[in-house]
Protein backbone atom coordinates (compact mmCIF):
# COMPACT_ATOMS: atom_id res chain seq x y z
CA UNK A 1 0.00 0.00 0.00
CA UNK A 2 2.85 2.40 -0.58
CA UNK A 3 0.86 4.38 -3.15
CA UNK A 4 -1.60 5.40 -0.42
CA UNK A 5 1.35 6.64 1.65
CA UNK A 6 2.64 8.63 -1.31
CA UNK A 7 -0.80 10.20 -1.69
CA UNK A 8 -0.92 11.05 2.01
CA UNK A 9 2.51 12.69 2.02
CA UNK A 10 2.07 14.46 -1.31
CA UNK A 11 2.16 18.21 -0.84
CA UNK A 12 -0.51 18.45 -3.55
CA UNK A 13 -3.02 16.61 -1.37
CA UNK A 14 -5.51 19.44 -0.87
CA UNK A 15 -5.54 19.53 2.91
CA UNK A 16 -4.49 23.14 3.37
CA UNK A 17 -0.81 22.53 4.12
CA UNK A 18 0.39 25.04 1.54
CA UNK A 19 -0.86 27.97 3.61
CA UNK A 20 1.31 26.99 6.61
CA UNK A 21 5.05 27.68 6.78
CA UNK A 22 5.80 25.88 10.05
CA UNK A 23 7.52 28.93 11.50
CA UNK A 24 9.57 29.63 8.38
CA UNK A 25 7.89 32.96 7.59
CA UNK A 26 8.67 34.32 11.06
CA UNK A 27 12.15 32.78 11.17
CA UNK A 28 12.88 34.70 7.98
CA UNK A 29 11.45 37.88 9.48
CA UNK A 30 13.65 37.35 12.56
CA UNK A 31 16.72 36.96 10.36
CA UNK A 32 17.33 33.36 11.45
CA UNK A 33 16.62 31.83 8.08
CA UNK A 34 18.25 33.51 5.15
CA UNK A 35 19.66 30.91 2.76
CA UNK A 36 20.03 27.17 2.08
CA UNK A 37 22.73 26.94 4.76
CA UNK A 38 20.35 28.14 7.44
CA UNK A 39 17.39 26.22 5.99
CA UNK A 40 18.76 22.80 6.89
CA UNK A 41 19.29 23.52 10.61
CA UNK A 42 15.84 25.06 10.82
CA UNK A 43 14.19 22.06 9.18
CA UNK A 44 16.15 19.71 11.46
CA UNK A 45 14.96 21.69 14.47
CA UNK A 46 11.37 21.30 13.35
CA UNK A 47 11.76 17.65 12.40
CA UNK A 48 13.22 16.60 15.73
CA UNK A 49 10.71 18.53 17.84
CA UNK A 50 7.27 19.13 16.36
CA UNK A 51 7.97 16.52 13.66
CA UNK A 52 8.75 13.86 16.24
CA UNK A 53 5.69 14.79 18.30
CA UNK A 54 3.48 14.66 15.20
CA UNK A 55 4.95 11.33 14.15
CA UNK A 56 4.29 9.83 17.57
CA UNK A 57 0.72 11.09 17.67
CA UNK A 58 0.03 9.97 14.09
CA UNK A 59 1.28 6.46 14.80
CA UNK A 60 -0.73 6.30 18.02
CA UNK A 61 -3.87 7.56 16.27
CA UNK A 62 -3.41 4.94 13.56
CA UNK A 63 -3.25 2.26 16.27
CA UNK A 64 -6.20 3.81 18.15
CA UNK A 65 -8.47 3.03 15.20
CA UNK A 66 -8.40 -0.61 16.34
CA UNK A 67 -9.21 0.33 19.93
CA UNK A 68 -12.51 -0.93 21.35
CA UNK A 69 -13.43 2.63 22.29
CA UNK A 70 -12.02 4.62 19.37
CA UNK A 71 -13.70 7.86 20.41
CA UNK A 72 -12.13 7.78 23.88
CA UNK A 73 -8.74 6.73 22.53
CA UNK A 74 -8.64 9.54 19.95
CA UNK A 75 -9.97 12.07 22.43
CA UNK A 76 -7.19 11.12 24.88
CA UNK A 77 -4.63 11.57 22.10
CA UNK A 78 -6.11 14.95 21.23
CA UNK A 79 -5.59 16.01 24.85
CA UNK A 80 -2.00 14.72 24.69
CA UNK A 81 -1.51 16.75 21.51
CA UNK A 82 -2.79 19.87 23.29
CA UNK A 83 -0.45 19.23 26.22
CA UNK A 84 2.46 19.01 23.79
CA UNK A 85 1.37 22.15 21.95
CA UNK A 86 0.99 24.91 24.53
CA UNK A 87 1.22 27.63 21.86
CA UNK A 88 -2.34 28.66 20.89
CA UNK A 89 -1.11 29.72 17.44
CA UNK A 90 0.43 26.29 16.82
CA UNK A 91 -2.69 24.57 18.15
CA UNK A 92 -4.85 26.57 15.78
CA UNK A 93 -2.51 25.73 12.90
CA UNK A 94 -2.57 22.02 13.80
CA UNK A 95 -6.36 21.95 14.11
CA UNK A 96 -6.87 23.90 10.86
CA UNK A 97 -4.74 21.37 9.02
CA UNK A 98 -6.44 18.49 10.79
CA UNK A 99 -9.82 19.75 9.66
CA UNK A 100 -8.53 20.06 6.09
CA UNK A 101 -7.21 16.52 6.11
CA UNK A 102 -10.47 15.14 7.50
CA UNK A 103 -12.28 16.84 4.62
CA UNK A 104 -10.18 15.22 1.91
CA UNK A 105 -9.30 11.99 3.72
CA UNK A 106 -12.89 11.21 4.59
CA UNK A 107 -13.83 11.29 0.93
CA UNK A 108 -10.74 9.48 -0.32
CA UNK A 109 -10.83 6.69 2.26
CA UNK A 110 -14.23 6.36 3.96
CA UNK A 111 -13.91 4.74 7.39
CA UNK A 112 -15.96 4.80 10.61
CA UNK A 113 -12.96 6.19 12.51
CA UNK A 114 -13.32 9.59 10.80
CA UNK A 115 -16.53 10.10 12.77
CA UNK A 116 -14.69 9.14 15.97
CA UNK A 117 -12.31 12.10 15.70
CA UNK A 118 -12.95 15.32 17.62
CA UNK A 119 -14.51 18.13 15.52
CA UNK A 120 -11.23 19.81 14.55
CA UNK A 121 -8.56 17.28 15.45
CA UNK A 122 -4.87 18.00 15.63
CA UNK A 123 -3.40 17.26 12.22
CA UNK A 124 -1.37 14.18 13.32
CA UNK A 125 -4.55 12.53 14.60
CA UNK A 126 -6.24 13.04 11.25
CA UNK A 127 -3.10 11.72 9.61
CA UNK A 128 -3.18 8.58 11.76
CA UNK A 129 -6.80 7.94 10.94
CA UNK A 130 -6.16 8.59 7.24
CA UNK A 131 -3.33 6.06 7.33
CA UNK A 132 -5.50 3.45 9.02
CA UNK A 133 -8.39 4.15 6.64
CA UNK A 134 -6.05 3.92 3.67
CA UNK A 135 -4.74 0.54 4.80
CA UNK A 136 -1.39 1.84 6.06
CA UNK A 137 0.53 1.06 9.24
CA UNK A 138 1.34 3.23 12.29
CA UNK A 139 4.92 3.39 11.00
CA UNK A 140 3.61 4.76 7.69
CA UNK A 141 1.58 7.36 9.56
CA UNK A 142 4.70 8.39 11.47
CA UNK A 143 6.67 8.59 8.24
CA UNK A 144 4.09 10.86 6.63
CA UNK A 145 3.99 13.11 9.70
CA UNK A 146 7.77 13.35 9.93
CA UNK A 147 8.11 14.06 6.22
CA UNK A 148 5.36 16.69 6.21
CA UNK A 149 7.03 18.47 9.13
CA UNK A 150 9.85 19.46 6.78
CA UNK A 151 8.38 19.38 3.28
CA UNK A 152 5.82 22.15 3.85
CA UNK A 153 8.25 24.53 5.58
CA UNK A 154 10.87 23.84 2.88
CA UNK A 155 8.40 24.90 0.19
CA UNK A 156 7.49 27.99 2.20
CA UNK A 157 11.16 28.96 2.41
CA UNK A 158 11.50 28.44 -1.32
CA UNK A 159 8.56 30.73 -2.00
CA UNK A 160 9.49 33.44 0.49
CA UNK A 161 13.22 33.61 -0.27
CA UNK A 162 12.97 32.78 -3.98
CA UNK A 163 15.43 29.98 -3.30
CA UNK A 164 16.51 27.67 -6.05
CA UNK A 165 13.87 24.91 -5.92
CA UNK A 166 16.51 22.34 -6.81
CA UNK A 167 18.56 23.37 -3.80
CA UNK A 168 15.50 23.09 -1.58
CA UNK A 169 14.68 19.68 -3.02
CA UNK A 170 18.26 18.56 -2.42
CA UNK A 171 18.19 19.75 1.20
CA UNK A 172 14.89 17.96 1.79
CA UNK A 173 16.13 14.80 0.10
CA UNK A 174 19.31 14.74 2.17
CA UNK A 175 17.25 14.95 5.34
CA UNK A 176 15.59 11.64 4.39
CA UNK A 177 17.69 9.45 6.72
CA UNK A 178 16.86 11.77 9.60
CA UNK A 179 13.18 11.79 8.65
CA UNK A 180 13.22 8.00 8.65
CA UNK A 181 15.02 7.90 11.99
CA UNK A 182 12.49 10.26 13.59
CA UNK A 183 9.59 8.24 12.18
CA UNK A 184 11.04 4.97 13.45
CA UNK A 185 11.84 6.33 16.90
CA UNK A 186 8.50 8.06 17.30
CA UNK A 187 6.32 4.99 16.90
CA UNK A 188 7.27 3.96 20.45
CA UNK A 189 5.59 6.04 23.14
CA UNK A 190 4.55 9.62 22.54
CA UNK A 191 7.50 12.00 22.13
CA UNK A 192 7.07 15.42 23.70
CA UNK A 193 10.08 17.22 22.22
CA UNK A 194 9.50 20.95 22.39
CA UNK A 195 11.26 23.94 20.91
CA UNK A 196 10.35 27.15 22.74
CA UNK A 197 11.81 29.08 19.80
CA UNK A 198 9.12 27.70 17.48
CA UNK A 199 6.45 28.61 20.06
CA UNK A 200 7.77 32.16 20.24
CA UNK A 201 8.00 32.52 16.45
CA UNK A 202 4.45 31.22 16.04
CA UNK A 203 3.02 33.64 18.60
CA UNK A 204 4.83 36.65 17.15
CA UNK A 205 3.73 35.60 13.66
CA UNK A 206 0.07 35.13 14.44
CA UNK A 207 -0.49 38.77 15.47
CA UNK A 208 1.14 40.13 12.32
CA UNK A 209 -1.24 41.56 9.74
CA UNK A 210 1.30 41.44 6.93
CA UNK A 211 1.81 37.73 6.49
CA UNK A 212 1.51 35.36 3.56
CA UNK A 213 1.08 32.22 5.63
CA UNK A 214 -1.48 31.17 8.20
CA UNK A 215 1.31 29.90 10.46
Amino acid at each position, binding site marked *: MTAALLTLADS*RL*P*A*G*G*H*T*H*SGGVEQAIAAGMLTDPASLAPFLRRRLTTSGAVAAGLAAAACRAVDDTDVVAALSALDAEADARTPSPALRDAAR*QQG*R*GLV*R*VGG*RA*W*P*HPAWAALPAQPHHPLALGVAAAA*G*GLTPRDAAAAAAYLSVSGPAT*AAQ*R*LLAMDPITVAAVTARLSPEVDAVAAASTVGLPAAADPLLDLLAEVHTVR*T*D*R*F*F*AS
Partner: protein
Amino acid sequence: MPPDHDLDDYVDPYSPGHRHGGPLRVGLGGPVGSGKTALAAALCRTLSSEYDLAVVTNDIYTTEDADFLRRNAVLPDDRIEAVQTGCCPHTAIRDDITANLDAVELLESRHPGLELVLVESGGDNLTASFSYGLVDVQVFVVDVAGGDKVPRKGGPGVTASDLLVVNKTDLAPLVGADLGVMRRDADAVRGGKPTLLISLRVDPAATEVAEWVREQVRARALQEA
Protein backbone atom coordinates in the same frame (compact mmCIF):
# COMPACT_ATOMS: atom_id res chain seq x y z
CA MET B 1 -9.44 -3.06 0.34
CA PRO B 2 -12.84 -1.98 1.70
CA PRO B 3 -15.39 -1.91 -1.16
CA ASP B 4 -16.10 1.79 -0.68
CA HIS B 5 -12.46 2.56 -1.40
CA ASP B 6 -12.80 1.19 -4.90
CA LEU B 7 -12.60 3.79 -7.65
CA ASP B 8 -15.58 2.28 -9.49
CA ASP B 9 -17.71 2.85 -6.41
CA TYR B 10 -16.73 6.47 -6.04
CA VAL B 11 -19.69 8.80 -6.33
CA ASP B 12 -18.84 12.42 -5.76
CA PRO B 13 -21.70 13.99 -3.91
CA TYR B 14 -19.95 17.35 -4.02
CA SER B 15 -19.45 17.68 -7.77
CA PRO B 16 -20.68 20.95 -9.32
CA GLY B 17 -24.42 21.02 -9.56
CA HIS B 18 -24.80 18.38 -6.88
CA ARG B 19 -23.96 20.40 -3.81
CA HIS B 20 -27.13 21.05 -1.89
CA GLY B 21 -27.89 23.56 0.77
CA GLY B 22 -25.80 26.50 1.79
CA PRO B 23 -25.40 29.86 0.13
CA LEU B 24 -24.58 30.49 -3.52
CA ARG B 25 -20.83 30.94 -3.76
CA VAL B 26 -19.67 33.43 -6.36
CA GLY B 27 -15.99 33.67 -7.24
CA LEU B 28 -14.57 37.05 -8.22
CA GLY B 29 -11.22 36.67 -9.96
CA GLY B 30 -8.98 38.69 -12.23
CA PRO B 31 -5.65 40.44 -12.55
CA VAL B 32 -4.29 42.88 -9.98
CA GLY B 33 -5.93 46.28 -10.14
CA SER B 34 -8.83 45.29 -12.40
CA GLY B 35 -11.34 46.26 -9.74
CA LYS B 36 -12.27 43.02 -7.97
CA THR B 37 -12.43 44.59 -4.55
CA ALA B 38 -14.32 47.61 -5.88
CA LEU B 39 -16.79 45.24 -7.57
CA ALA B 40 -17.14 43.20 -4.38
CA ALA B 41 -17.83 46.41 -2.46
CA ALA B 42 -20.36 47.52 -5.06
CA LEU B 43 -22.15 44.16 -4.97
CA CYS B 44 -22.23 44.26 -1.18
CA ARG B 45 -23.80 47.73 -1.22
CA THR B 46 -26.36 46.78 -3.85
CA LEU B 47 -27.24 43.29 -2.67
CA SER B 48 -26.81 43.28 1.12
CA SER B 49 -30.34 44.61 1.60
CA GLU B 50 -31.71 41.77 -0.53
CA TYR B 51 -29.61 38.82 0.58
CA ASP B 52 -27.97 37.49 3.69
CA LEU B 53 -24.45 38.05 2.37
CA ALA B 54 -20.78 37.58 3.30
CA VAL B 55 -17.36 37.95 1.66
CA VAL B 56 -14.14 35.93 1.71
CA THR B 57 -10.99 37.75 0.57
CA ASN B 58 -7.77 36.10 -0.63
CA ASP B 59 -5.14 38.78 -0.58
CA ILE B 60 -1.73 37.86 -1.83
CA TYR B 61 -0.35 39.72 1.11
CA THR B 62 -1.90 41.39 4.14
CA THR B 63 -5.60 41.73 4.76
CA GLU B 64 -5.80 44.87 2.66
CA ASP B 65 -8.93 43.97 0.72
CA ALA B 66 -10.75 42.83 3.83
CA ASP B 67 -9.67 46.06 5.52
CA PHE B 68 -10.92 48.05 2.50
CA LEU B 69 -14.33 46.42 2.82
CA ARG B 70 -14.35 47.04 6.56
CA ARG B 71 -13.25 50.65 6.24
CA ASN B 72 -15.92 51.30 3.68
CA ALA B 73 -18.38 49.62 6.02
CA VAL B 74 -20.10 47.80 3.20
CA LEU B 75 -20.57 44.81 5.51
CA PRO B 76 -20.25 44.22 9.25
CA ASP B 77 -16.87 42.81 10.29
CA ASP B 78 -18.27 39.40 11.14
CA ARG B 79 -19.31 38.96 7.51
CA ILE B 80 -15.81 39.38 6.11
CA GLU B 81 -13.16 36.67 6.37
CA ALA B 82 -9.61 37.01 5.04
CA VAL B 83 -7.53 33.91 4.32
CA GLN B 84 -3.77 33.61 4.01
CA THR B 85 -2.73 32.06 0.74
CA GLY B 86 0.88 31.07 1.42
CA CYS B 87 2.24 33.33 -1.33
CA CYS B 88 0.12 31.44 -3.84
CA PRO B 89 -3.31 32.99 -4.40
CA HIS B 90 -4.18 30.78 -7.34
CA THR B 91 -3.36 27.64 -5.33
CA ALA B 92 -5.76 28.77 -2.62
CA ILE B 93 -8.69 29.16 -5.02
CA ARG B 94 -7.95 26.28 -7.36
CA ASP B 95 -5.51 23.55 -6.30
CA ASP B 96 -5.96 23.45 -2.54
CA ILE B 97 -9.10 25.27 -1.55
CA THR B 98 -9.01 24.16 2.09
CA ALA B 99 -8.44 27.58 3.65
CA ASN B 100 -11.25 29.07 1.57
CA LEU B 101 -13.66 26.25 2.38
CA ASP B 102 -12.84 26.75 6.06
CA ALA B 103 -13.62 30.46 5.71
CA VAL B 104 -16.91 29.81 3.90
CA GLU B 105 -17.92 27.22 6.49
CA LEU B 106 -17.01 29.60 9.30
CA LEU B 107 -19.24 32.28 7.78
CA GLU B 108 -22.03 29.74 7.28
CA SER B 109 -21.85 28.65 10.89
CA ARG B 110 -21.79 32.25 12.08
CA HIS B 111 -24.73 33.23 9.85
CA PRO B 112 -27.00 30.19 9.45
CA GLY B 113 -29.31 32.00 7.00
CA LEU B 114 -26.51 32.97 4.63
CA GLU B 115 -27.70 33.14 1.01
CA LEU B 116 -24.73 34.52 -0.90
CA VAL B 117 -20.96 34.38 -0.41
CA LEU B 118 -18.60 36.36 -2.61
CA VAL B 119 -15.13 34.81 -2.74
CA GLU B 120 -12.66 37.40 -3.99
CA SER B 121 -9.36 36.01 -5.24
CA GLY B 122 -6.03 37.67 -4.73
CA GLY B 123 -4.92 39.54 -7.81
CA ASP B 124 -3.42 37.00 -10.14
CA ASN B 125 -2.73 36.47 -13.80
CA LEU B 126 -4.94 35.49 -16.71
CA THR B 127 -4.53 31.75 -16.07
CA ALA B 128 -6.05 31.81 -12.59
CA SER B 129 -9.53 30.47 -12.13
CA PHE B 130 -11.62 29.11 -9.27
CA SER B 131 -12.17 25.46 -8.60
CA TYR B 132 -15.85 24.52 -8.77
CA GLY B 133 -15.23 22.70 -5.52
CA LEU B 134 -15.10 26.16 -3.97
CA VAL B 135 -17.57 28.28 -5.96
CA ASP B 136 -20.79 27.66 -7.85
CA VAL B 137 -20.22 30.36 -10.42
CA GLN B 138 -17.32 32.66 -11.16
CA VAL B 139 -16.85 36.16 -12.46
CA PHE B 140 -13.60 37.19 -14.10
CA VAL B 141 -12.82 40.89 -13.97
CA VAL B 142 -10.43 42.53 -16.43
CA ASP B 143 -10.11 46.20 -17.16
CA VAL B 144 -9.85 48.35 -20.21
CA ALA B 145 -6.61 49.92 -19.00
CA GLY B 146 -4.93 46.51 -19.26
CA GLY B 147 -5.22 46.87 -23.02
CA ASP B 148 -7.93 45.84 -25.47
CA LYS B 149 -6.10 42.65 -26.42
CA VAL B 150 -6.77 41.00 -23.04
CA PRO B 151 -9.93 39.19 -24.22
CA ARG B 152 -8.12 38.00 -27.35
CA LYS B 153 -5.27 36.57 -25.26
CA GLY B 154 -7.79 34.38 -23.56
CA GLY B 155 -6.79 32.18 -20.65
CA PRO B 156 -9.18 30.19 -18.47
CA GLY B 157 -10.47 33.29 -16.66
CA VAL B 158 -11.50 34.99 -19.86
CA THR B 159 -12.76 31.96 -21.74
CA ALA B 160 -14.32 29.79 -19.06
CA SER B 161 -15.68 32.16 -16.42
CA ASP B 162 -19.45 32.25 -16.08
CA LEU B 163 -19.38 36.02 -16.42
CA LEU B 164 -16.63 38.18 -17.89
CA VAL B 165 -16.62 41.74 -16.65
CA VAL B 166 -14.64 44.36 -18.54
CA ASN B 167 -14.30 47.20 -16.04
CA LYS B 168 -13.26 50.86 -16.34
CA THR B 169 -14.92 51.46 -19.72
CA ASP B 170 -14.73 55.18 -18.87
CA LEU B 171 -10.97 54.94 -19.41
CA ALA B 172 -11.27 53.55 -22.95
CA PRO B 173 -10.75 56.87 -24.76
CA LEU B 174 -7.80 57.71 -22.52
CA VAL B 175 -5.90 54.49 -23.13
CA GLY B 176 -6.96 54.08 -26.74
CA ALA B 177 -8.83 50.84 -26.10
CA ASP B 178 -11.53 49.79 -28.56
CA LEU B 179 -14.52 48.50 -26.59
CA GLY B 180 -16.03 47.03 -29.73
CA VAL B 181 -12.91 44.92 -30.29
CA MET B 182 -12.96 43.77 -26.70
CA ARG B 183 -16.61 42.78 -26.90
CA ARG B 184 -16.10 40.95 -30.22
CA ASP B 185 -12.95 39.11 -29.06
CA ALA B 186 -14.63 38.08 -25.80
CA ASP B 187 -17.72 36.78 -27.58
CA ALA B 188 -15.49 34.82 -29.95
CA VAL B 189 -13.77 32.85 -27.19
CA ARG B 190 -16.59 32.57 -24.62
CA GLY B 191 -18.95 30.22 -26.40
CA GLY B 192 -22.08 32.24 -25.70
CA LYS B 193 -21.37 32.99 -22.03
CA PRO B 194 -22.09 36.59 -21.05
CA THR B 195 -19.69 39.53 -21.01
CA LEU B 196 -20.51 42.86 -19.37
CA LEU B 197 -18.69 46.10 -20.12
CA ILE B 198 -19.04 48.33 -17.10
CA SER B 199 -17.60 51.32 -15.31
CA LEU B 200 -17.83 51.28 -11.54
CA ARG B 201 -17.01 54.97 -11.59
CA VAL B 202 -20.05 55.71 -13.74
CA ASP B 203 -22.26 53.09 -12.05
CA PRO B 204 -21.03 52.51 -8.46
CA ALA B 205 -23.96 50.14 -7.89
CA ALA B 206 -22.68 47.67 -10.51
CA THR B 207 -26.29 47.33 -11.61
CA GLU B 208 -25.79 44.83 -14.42
CA VAL B 209 -23.44 42.56 -12.49
CA ALA B 210 -25.79 42.63 -9.51
CA GLU B 211 -28.65 41.62 -11.77
CA TRP B 212 -26.58 38.71 -13.13
CA VAL B 213 -25.90 37.58 -9.54
CA ARG B 214 -29.63 37.76 -8.77
CA GLU B 215 -30.28 35.49 -11.76
CA GLN B 216 -27.75 32.99 -10.41
CA VAL B 217 -29.39 32.98 -6.99
CA ARG B 218 -32.79 32.42 -8.64
CA ALA B 219 -31.43 29.66 -10.87
CA ARG B 220 -29.95 27.91 -7.87
CA ALA B 221 -33.20 28.21 -5.92
CA LEU B 222 -35.04 26.60 -8.87
CA GLN B 223 -32.46 23.83 -9.05
CA GLU B 224 -32.81 23.13 -5.34
CA ALA B 225 -36.63 23.13 -5.48
